[in-house]
């Protein structure tokens, strides 16, 4: 099984070296590639200086564009599995083999969930997560405890769809779409770190529109989408 770990990095000069060193130390058996999303800081130079494998996008594509870039690269280079791994140190490399084990039980998508066995905290941010979980369950019948989690291992079938289809971004509605079209989704309990450096993309306003978009997309639009091949 060939697995590609791709590391989306947008202005992660403070953390990228630590993240890659840690990943290589803990999971030397997997290939990795950094996808530099048009960073304006020293991310690219740091990758070059340290000899890290790095694809540098000339412009900033955003989360969805980077996610597609990683999956496309994995698909074109014949990888069997692909997983994104945060460039800001939120993800722990030791969980990747656990996700792979789960995958081998016959799933198409395995997500590292923060809340599979642990309780979701009761704050505003998690309320959004709960609402998405609820609609996900309502429309697909599948329980998805952490729909906004970043560690999602996919197999070649899903990889191809993400690489080639429009509207397969790195967001919960994409997983709802796949599951509705017969993909099998499983979760594995993982622990995530607080971000080491940098700021979260999600401000309150953005979170609100994100929630609105996800709800409309999962509840309404998904009914009318064409099934994938």
């Amino acid at each position, binding site marked *: 099984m060939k697995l590609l770990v791709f590391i989306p990095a947008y202005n992660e000069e403070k953390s990228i070296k630590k993240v890659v060193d840690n990943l290589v130390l803990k999971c030397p058996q997997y290939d990795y590639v950094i996808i530099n999303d048009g960073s304006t800081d020293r991310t690219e130079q740091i990758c070059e200086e340290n000899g890290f494998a790095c694809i540098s996008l*000339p*412009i900033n594509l955003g989360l969805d564009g980077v996610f597609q870039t990683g999956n496309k690269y994995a698909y074109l280079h014949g990888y069997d599995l692909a997983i994104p791994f945060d460039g800001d140190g939120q993800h722990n490399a030791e969980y990747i083999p656990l996700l792979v084990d789960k995958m081998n039980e016959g799933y198409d998508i395995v997500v590292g969930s923060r809340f599979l066995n642990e309780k979701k905290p009761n704050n505003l941010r998690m309320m959004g997560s709960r609402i998405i979980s609820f609609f996900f369950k309502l429309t697909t019948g599948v329980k998805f405890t952490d729909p906004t989690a970043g560690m999602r291992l996919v197999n070649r079938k899903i990889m191809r769809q993400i690489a080639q*289809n*429009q*509207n397969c*971004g790195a967001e919960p*509605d994409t997983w709802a779409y796949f599951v509705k079209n017969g993909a099998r989704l499983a979760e594995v309990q993982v622990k995530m770190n607080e971000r080491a450096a940098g700021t979260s993309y999600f401000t309150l306003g953005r979170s609100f529109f994100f929630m*609105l*978009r996800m709800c*409309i*997309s999962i509840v*309404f*639009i998904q009914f*009318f*989408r*064409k099934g994938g091949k």
Partner: protein
Amino acid sequence: MSTELRIVLIVVSILVLIYVLRKIRQSKLNIIDSIFWIVVAVILILLSVFPQIAFFLSAVLGIQTPLNFIFLLIIAILILKVFLMTIKISQLQEKTKVLAQKIAYDEFEKKIEDTKEEDQ
């Protein structure tokens, strides 16, 4: 608000919804860009089905008839959309420029390397 206008609004809104969903099916539209049109269509349907909302809001804003309120609302939404699209076009222009420069730069570098190899 006349019944005729309400019916027209509802029919047009539903047509917009169908059109937007078809474009998503044909992979000609990103979901993220479709949300605006879906929300607008739903708002217009709500206003037509429950004209009380328009009556209430026009009274609050001191607008003479609910119909004027609907016009004002649609104009406001469209101005907002045009502004957001202007921002988007600016960003796209900037990105195309960077892409073109990157391609030109890479080709130029390649040409220099090729001539170097030929010289040797």
